């Protein structure tokens, strides 16, 4: 089983966003792997290992499209356990979801993985588009917001569960397929791969990179490519005009009684 995991670096979401002249000021940003992509890496690792024996059974290739510094985030994924990395050079400003999806299609065509596993969205732009666009470009089956993945039919298919308003929806997809993951994918028993015993319980969340993993990551292969190498050209169709912070919220009020609350809701807020 070979899994391609596209990852994006994002400014640390824990830190405050600075806006200067209608643009995000990223000069002091600290970069981290997009949270959902980290979950995708974790899911891919779980799919390709025997967790009880601590052995690998498959290959996880991480790919990013981004500036030189983004190699740091690729190495973070290698430190977690991914086997190799592909770094496609590009400045963030020259990209939008469609260009990213086109580039990933070109990588897919070279790599021919059994599955592309992505985060459901990046926590910077929150566009939630790349996985869907990629599936369309590749003409592959897709399942978005996966809460669990189970390999089926001797690795020829996977069953993905998704949390929807009415409950949990199960989808069976022939492989290769494109799957995007939601946060439940890193819960203790969310992945079944037919190799790790089903009784195995993972620690909740993406795994920690061990110091050994961190040191090993430096020696793992990282391919450097340009978009031109992959035959991808064009400029973004989405243009960023201005970035503004949401308006500050007005202070809340404390009411004395339910009667007063109802009165305020109907008369002041006009919500009833």
């Amino acid at each position, binding site marked *: 089983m070979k899994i391609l995991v596209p990852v994006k670096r994002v400014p640390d979401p824990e830190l405050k966003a600075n806006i200067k002249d209608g643009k995000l000021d990223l000069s002091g940003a600290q970069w*981290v792997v997009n949270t959902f992509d980290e979950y995708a890496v974790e899911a891919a690792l779980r799919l390709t290992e025997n967790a009880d024996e601590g052995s690998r059974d498959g290959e996880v290739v991480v790919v990013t499209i981004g500036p030189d510094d983004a190699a*740091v985030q690729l*190495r*973070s994924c290698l*430190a977690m356990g991914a086997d190799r990395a592909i770094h496609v050079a590009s400045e963030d400003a020259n990209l939008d979801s469609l260009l990213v999806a086109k580039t990933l299609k070109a990588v897919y065509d070279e790599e021919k993985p059994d599955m592309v596993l992505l985060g459901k969205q990046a926590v910077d732009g929150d566009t939630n588009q790349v996985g869907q666009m990629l599936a369309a470009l590749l003409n592959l089956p897709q399942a978005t917001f996966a809460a669990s993945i189970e390999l089926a039919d001797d690795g020829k298919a996977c069953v993905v569960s998704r949390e929807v308003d009415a409950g949990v929806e199960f989808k069976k997809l022939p492989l290769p397929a494109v799957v995007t993951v939601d946060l439940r994918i890193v819960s203790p028993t969310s992945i079944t791969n037919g190799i790790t015993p089903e009784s195995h319980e993972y*620690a909740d969340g993406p795994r*920690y*990179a*061990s*110091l*050994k*993993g*961190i*040191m090993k*990551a*430096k020696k793992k292969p990282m391919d450097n490519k340009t978009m031109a190498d992959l035959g991808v050209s064009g400029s973004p169709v989405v243009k960023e005009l201005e970035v503004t912070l949401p308006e500050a919220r007005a202070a809340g009020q404390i009411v004395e009684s339910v009667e007063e609350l109802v009165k305020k809701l109907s008369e002041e807020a006009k919500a009833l």
Partner: protein
Amino acid sequence: MRARYYFEGEEHEELRTQARRFATAQIAPNATSWEEAEEFPRSLYPALANAGLMGVGYPEEFGGCGGDLGHTLAAAEEILLAGHSVGTIVGLSSHAIALPPILARGSEEQKRRFVSPVMSGEKISALGITEPSGGSDVAALQTKAVRDGDHYVVSGAKTFITSGTRADFVTTAVRTGGPGHGGISLLIIEKDTPGFFVSKKLKKTGWWASDTAELRFDNCRVPAENLIGPENSGFFAIVSNFVHERLYLAAQCVAIAQLAYQESVAYARNRSAFGKTLSRFQVTRHKLSDMATKIAAARALTGEVAMRAMAGEAVIAQAAMAKNAATDACSWVADQAVQIHGGYGYMRESIVERLYRDARLYAIGGGTREIMNEIISKTEAF
């Protein structure tokens, strides 16, 4: 001012990321309650091990994570900065003094039996040197161990032992020979050994979340196989870890000062007096500048001596200097941090109040300020 040593590279950064993630999720939310309860849960040891942070700087052969002193210092600093609980981290890391003598002088069998389960978080270890009758003069220790067949019979007491109430074993300094340093041996004494008593959990100025114990040995029969190295060679096993221990303590001081400084900068930017924020008063800005400068100096010295130690230089006096410099910087910075916080700085709800108390230990533990100066004096041969 970023908390980084000059020797740090990308792998330290990645290690810090892991440490920060662990401490933010597992320690910070509980920091105040654990400090007030004077205890953190035992389950934190395996959790730390699972995050790959227990064994940083210890050999992989015995369950460690590999890496060197530089990795240890970076990880420890980040856990402290993100976790906010000095007591928790010093409790979690009592193995940093308990294991090195076993690793340096112990048998393969002892390393397997005692080092590996500590690395996995299953067992807790402590180091027992100081006695009620004295700590600085290690060569004068009185706890006796008399050989009796396959056992040593130990009688005496140890005090101020970090993690002592919960330790599964204590690397214990005992007198097996005549007076002076030539008569000292190290014995690994396990918790369930008949005659081993935890006589008291001690109340302290700071380091609350870390348990500190008084131990008593009452004709405690310890298997002779638990002797580390040859009989009467214990003093050198103890001394051989002094450089690392002191640099580790110096780095804790740097980290505490850094945290107190960060808290102060944030507070000064937010708190207003006389119509402007504290950071708009030149007096405050200069105070913060002095704090930053002292931390930078302590960090630079600690980092340099650590680099020299890693390169194999003998740095006994330099490590003593680093410990004293970092101790002084830490106490001063913590004191200024309380001042910047005003009344809140004196309240138990603020982090700097706790750091101020925690800081006081470092001029005492791990060799006092005066003993450090004795070492420097001897080396400089005044």
